């Protein structure tokens, strides 16, 4: 009955406009938060290197081929890059200064032996499990991360021999061996693949193994640093790219593109979140204003109810419940609209070759619940103030 008295004879056009505004704000908010999270997640788990992390090196030109220009980094150059605004972390990649070859050590795969180039990077740049990524002399095997091109090459070799190709999982279970050598000295170590990478062209090994090889099987020439591992700050890919161009440096193109795309998309979605928050705020203000208007138009009705013995709490509760239903409709409709929009966007991305997690992100739904909570709290105090004012 209270509901009929307070709400049945109201002009609802202002309410409907505010509801549409809130609905659009909520939908933009949930969509932009969802895709900001998905954009940041994109590429995670597939690669060994951490987010926004890439290897840089000097561009190879004819002069470097003729040894007229250096392609290694001096300490000063490294320090200079480290001080750049876009640099979050930077470390030289250690390369082997000893002879090492890799050979297959299983009946499941054909015998193959080749000289290899190994590198090690600090574990903070990679996503490799630290428990798996350690080695000490005497350990059963050395964990390595294999460039995916190497496995492709191995499979090409296997098919030429009429042997079925090796999957990632099988490759991880079959045996390999490293042979470390220096004049008059040779040592064999068992090797186990713990992961694959598209980002690094050399075999990655733990730094303890690199130190062991460099100390025990040293070459005459001193070790030089030709590559650096660098993590770019979020959203600074533009500066980073300009720097590379200016200093004739290069990075692997694919990780650069992904980083740039993530940077651009992240900025766009952040702007969209900002616009959504403003929309939600403005629509919220209109809803609050509507509630105030409703209370002031119903001043006689509220006062009469109070004089008839209705408690202020009961009247406040009725107003609050009415608006909770309104907010629930807005929130529900925005989540449904988001699901529909998400279905089409995901389909579009999938068609474009970008596979992202199809699930809903918890934070985006939480944002709607949070906005719903804020609306409800503001409305409660608004209703309380309005009802008690009529006493």
């Amino acid at each position, binding site marked *: *009955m209270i509901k*009929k*008295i307070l709400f*049945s*004879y109201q002009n609802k056009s202002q309410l409907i406009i505010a509801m549409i505004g809130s609905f659009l704000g909520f939908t933009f908010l949930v969509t932009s938060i969802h895709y900001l999270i998905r954009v940041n997640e994109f590429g995670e788990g597939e690669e060994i290197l951490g987010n926004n992390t890439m290897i840089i090196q000097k561009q190879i030109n004819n002069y470097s081929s003729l040894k007229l220009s250096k392609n290694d980094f001096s300490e000063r150059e490294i320090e200079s890059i480290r001080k750049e605004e876009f640099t979050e972390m930077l470390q030289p990649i250690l390369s082997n200064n000893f002879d090492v070859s890799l050979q297959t050590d299983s009946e499941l795969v054909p015998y193959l032996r080749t000289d290899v180039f190994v590198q090690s990077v600090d574990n903070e740049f990679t996503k490799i499990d630290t428990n798996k990524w350690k080695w000490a002399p005497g350990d059963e095997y050395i964990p390595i991360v294999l460039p995916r091109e190497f496995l492709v090459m191995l499979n090409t070799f296997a098919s030429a021999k009429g042997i079925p190709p090796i999957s990632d999982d099988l490759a991880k279970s079959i045996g390999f061996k490293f042979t470390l050598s220096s004049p008059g000295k040779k040592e064999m170590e068992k090797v186990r693949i713990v992961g694959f990478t598209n980002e690094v062209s050399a075999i990655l090994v733990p730094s303890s193994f690199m130190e062991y090889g460099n100390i025990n099987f040293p070459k005459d020439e001193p070790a030089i640093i030709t590559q650096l591992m660098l993590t770019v700050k979020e959203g600074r890919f533009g500066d980073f790219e300009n720097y590379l161009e200016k200093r004739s440096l290069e990075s692997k193109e694919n990780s650069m593109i992904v980083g740039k795309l993530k940077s651009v998309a992240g900025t766009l979605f952040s702007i969209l979140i900002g616009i959504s928050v403003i929309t939600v705020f403005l629509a919220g203000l209109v809803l609050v204003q509507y509630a105030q208007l409703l209370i002031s138009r119903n001043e006689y*009705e509220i006062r*009469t*109810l*109070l*004089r*008839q*013995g*209705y*408690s*202020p*709490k009961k009247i406040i509760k009725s107003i609050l419940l009415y608006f909770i239903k309104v907010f629930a409709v807005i929130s529900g409709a925005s989540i449904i609209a988001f699901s529909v929009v998400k279905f089409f966007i995901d389909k579009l991305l999938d068609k474009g070759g970008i596979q992202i997690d199809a699930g809903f992100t918890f934070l985006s739904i939480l944002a709607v619940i949070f906005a719903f909570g804020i609306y409800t709290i503001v409305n409660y105090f608004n209703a309380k103030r309005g009802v*008690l004012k009529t*006493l």
Partner: protein
Amino acid sequence: MDIHFNNVIPIPLSGIQHSDKSIWGSEFSLHKGEKVMLNASSGKGKTTFTHTLAGIRKDFNGSIRFDEREITSFSPEEWADLRKEQISFVFQDLQLFSKLTVEENLHLKNNLTDSFSSSELKQMLEELEIDDKWSVPCGILSMGQQQRVAIIRALCQPFDWLLMDEPFSNLDVENTQRALSLINNRVNDIKSGFILTTLGENHNFDFDRELNL
């Protein structure tokens, strides 16, 4: 519940010279079960008196107590309980919901305490000869009919006191007698009292007490 007045003068009436008979500025008590007529000419504060006891107006000097409690100390929730269980009103302006039907207006009040069934409500309407208005919005009833609805609505709750501010101003003698009889029966049933403000007319009723403003 007894009502105690101690030198009460509404602030807007404090500049006026009141007669010796006036209750304003005097000390007296009203005891539960009394049937009181409050007699005054226009502008002497009958509505102010009703509104002050209803907790609507707080602009007075002196003190009013319900039993031992100062009425200015009641919280909004406590006033709601008082208005639901202990004091009922027939306001001069009736305060009905014009868009709601007679049935809805009565149920709105009756639902708070479930004092009567629908058939009992209809019976009361019949006694006041407006039972045919059950489904009619109050806004289209005559003032006399609305007054009778407001009287019945005021009876739809338990109370210690029924405060009526010129409740028969639009009723003829016959309807006034019927309404007064209905009120008296209800008051006797629940052993409560009432205060009826008039312009001097005692409606041929034997009041326990007469007050003047």
